[in-house]
């Protein structure tokens, strides 16, 4: 099969790169084993949250951050490009109504009750912004075992906000009768799409709310009809309603995945899921095709002029550490940067220590092309994006989705430059 561009991976960076390439007029194929980071992540775009001090303005902090971390993927990207990627993303995800900017991080509550810094959030989370304090009621659903509003609220009231504002928060429990005792996020999301269910929840809830309180729900307020669900709840409760993301699977992340997939398909992209890249053909310093084994079928060659490796890090299996301590990149066997020698520790005894291997990944040139053993781009037409890149600690920095977006966007931009 022939394409102009082949993107490997359906996490945020792969989705972004594929969509941008397809919109740019290239015949684009996205190949992935399965869904990726979107189904795990809260769907907010964290660009830079901690350095490790709390970052109030990503735009303000990025220049110094890039100078201090020359190995970081952000060091390959200009601030303009990062801003451009965010603006582009907001347009493509209009249906989700992302708000915020790089100028000032929002602070939105995690399910543990930490005010977490993030640059832009979907509309469903916007009313949870804590920057200027406020009064909040968090809703516990009886059968939702991964959301504990009293724990959340008690932590949140202790938040020390940069503005000095106070947060008042408490838990309100609803009995949501008629459901099984153990209901997952997706099933709740579907239940909320049923008008009768959400009306029942709203009417039970309403009497317990106090004036001035905004209402935080676990992030299960509908899947495809989320806007309608939230609007109706806000109307019924006569106050702002927002979602708090929690343990996977992430309903807001699935909405984001669906929005980007739909846009990619509208742009004429070809979508191949359940397919594993098992090898590559190369010639004269270029990648010519990927060997792709689809589920229960034979291996076929996916030819292309440009390739984007958006396969993720260790979590997705893109990078593999074996029992002898050897690390490899699983598609091309590219050298992995940031791995201490075998006899030295890779991980330290404290779970939150600075682990020597935390930043391992692919080193890239200024055009995001992974480097080969000689330190030059391994292939002239292979680009890398997202968690496979070396130099970042996405969770500690709170930069994961921001990096995925910016590098996926940048990789596609470099390819579009080459193509024009």
């Amino acid at each position, binding site marked *: 099969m022939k394409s102009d561009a082949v993107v490997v991976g359906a996490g945020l960076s792969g989705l972004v790169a594929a969509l941008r390439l397809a919109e740019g007029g290239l015949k684009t194929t996205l190949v992935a084993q399965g869904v990726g980071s979107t189904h795990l992540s809260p769907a907010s775009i964290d660009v830079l949250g*901690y350095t490790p001090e709390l970052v109030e303005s990503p735009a303000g902090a990025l220049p110094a951050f890039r100078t201090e971390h020359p190995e970081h993927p952000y060091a390959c990207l200009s601030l303009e490009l990062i801003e451009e990627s965010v603006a582009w993303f907001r347009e493509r995800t209009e249906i989700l109504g992302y708000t915020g900017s790089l100028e000032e991080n929002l602070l939105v509550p995690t399910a543990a009750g930490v005010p977490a810094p993030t640059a832009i959030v979907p509309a469903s989370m916007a009313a949870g912004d804590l920057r200027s304090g406020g009064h909040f009621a968090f809703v516990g659903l009886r*059968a939702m075992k991964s959301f504990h509003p009293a724990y959340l609220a008690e932590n949140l009231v202790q938040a020390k906000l940069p503005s000095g504002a106070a947060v008042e928060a408490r838990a309100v429990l609803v009995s949501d009768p008629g459901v099984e005792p153990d209901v997952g996020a997706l099933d709740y999301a579907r239940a909320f799409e049923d008008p009768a269910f959400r009306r029942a929840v709203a009417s039970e809830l309403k009497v317990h709310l106090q004036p001035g309180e905004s209402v935080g729900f676990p992030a299960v307020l509908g899947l495809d009809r989320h806007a309608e669900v939230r609007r109706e709840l806000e109307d019924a409760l006569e106050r702002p309603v927002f979602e708090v993301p929690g343990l996977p699977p992430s309903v807001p992340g699935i909405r984001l995945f669906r929005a980007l997939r739909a846009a990619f398909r509208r742009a004429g992209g070809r979508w191949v899921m359940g397919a594993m890249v098992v090898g590559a053909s190369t010639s004269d310093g270029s990648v010519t095709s990927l060997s792709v084994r689809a589920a229960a079928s034979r291996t076929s060659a996916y030819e292309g002029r440009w390739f984007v490796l958006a396969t993720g890090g260790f979590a997705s299996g893109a990078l593999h550490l074996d029992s002898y301590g050897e690390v490899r990149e699983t598609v091309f066997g590219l050298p992995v940067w940031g791995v201490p020698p075998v006899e030295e520790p890779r991980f330290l005894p404290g779970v939150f220590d600075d682990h020597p291997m935390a930043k391992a990944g692919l080193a890239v040139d200024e055009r995001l092309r992974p480097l080969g053993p000689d330190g030059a781009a391994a292939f002239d037409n292979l680009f890398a994006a997202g968690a496979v890149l070396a130099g970042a600690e996405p969770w500690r920095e709170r930069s994961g989705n921001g990096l995925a977006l910016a590098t996926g966007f940048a990789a596609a931009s470099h390819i579009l430059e080459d193509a024009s």
Partner: protein
Amino acid sequence: MSATAKLRTEVLVIGGGSTGLGVVRDAAMRGFSTVLVDRGDLATGTTGRFHGLLHSGGRYVVKDPKAAEECIHENWILRKIAADCIEDTGGLFVTTPVDDPTYADTFADACRAVGIPVEEIPVSEALRREPRLNPGISRAFTVPDGSVDSWKTVWACARSAESYGARILPYHEVLRLIVEGGVMKGAIVVDHRSGEEVQIDADFVVNASGAWAGRIAAMAGCEVTVFPGKGIMVAMSHRLVDTVINRCAMPSDGDIIVPARAVSVIGTTDVKVADPDHWEITREEVQKMLDAGENLVPGFRSARALRVWGGVRPLYQEKAAGADTRDVTRAHALLNHRTRDGVERFVTITGGKFCTFRLMAEETMDAVCAELGIERPCRTADEPLPDSESRRYYWLGSRVAQREETLHTDQLICECEFVTRSDLETALRRRGTTSLDDIRRMVRLGMGPCQGGFCIFRATGIMHELQKTPVHVANRALLDFVQERWKGVQPILYGDQLRQTRLDEWIFQGILDVGHLPGDESRSAKPEKVTT
């Protein structure tokens, strides 16, 4: 300093491992009033940190026939009284390509001599039963090995003892022993959860503190030398084998795989350490275990390693010995400090193995009775432990069967280990603890493949709600348990478990941002006592 509280008992048992619980149950069943103390929770020393082998005795039969004979004797008794704690996996001794082929006949003869039922089966039959076994094996013997859950056993002993009036006091550490005029009178202990000191007056004190026995004995001026022999174990995800697999050779490093619940445990090493509380698991030891696994089950290295842990065997020898603790007898030692050191009403029971804990307890209480000049027979070999009355063995599907019964009435909090919300709440109420690790040992919370990635947060929320735990205490419980789970995966992080760990990091740091939870920065080592 005078103790603020006082307790009075006939028999005080020091040490909450299998031996101590065996003694306290035996004492209670003989009609003594009895109290057991441990500095930590029950079964957190050596008892909770071995591979879970119910010995047939085959392992020691050539080197230490006396220990082997005790093993098979107790094996039959435990099957009778602790069936719910035992999976009847059976065991195989196989001669692998690296083993001395002449050992097999010596082994079989030695088994017969001490009464271990042994039967040679054709290699083809062994491979049919265990298809993953190294096809290069040359001999195979069946023995009645099994797999035993030490936590379940210890907690069942505790419940049994309590039903006979015993008091079990975890988190009570002995500060001093009270010896007056050459007679043991009791102990001053500190309750780590309240900070309060308690004086326990006793007619008799049994030191059952295993690898720590020397420290306790020294408090009464008695010199007892116990060599802590460190052994490490690696749990592999899945049942790579369904039978206990032993190398048919003299005991050495990495010569056994024990199928335990949904995992397989490979063990072990034996390294003398200076201090039973301070030692490390080295990369070399882990690599040695993986190589050993590869020899028994080819492909072992590409399987998923879940967790590694170590324990220290209490190896007692009256006279000084060399560095190789493996040469020290695995038989136990009962020391009468009246005849040995001139301290009356005080004995130490140490050495031995988990499998012989009941016998050790019986001999100890026989000695106590003799010292007190009274005759009360032991009944522990006849009365089944709680939940083992039906004498049906635990089997792999037990928990699935239980879960199916509550499918529509209860929440699953730990999906890996089938821990329901009721299980968790019952354990929280029963223990009144804020340590999720204490709860783990009771219900296996967080012990499966994801090592707590999902259930730790849920359990924290439930604990906070149920016990009205102050939020900073709940936060500490969460962080401590995340750290406790990390401790066991950090030395074996590779392959699929590394993938899992990255997901767990994503959850705790990315989604929940627990690194920025409010609360006091200091972590207390001891959980708090709460009442619900």
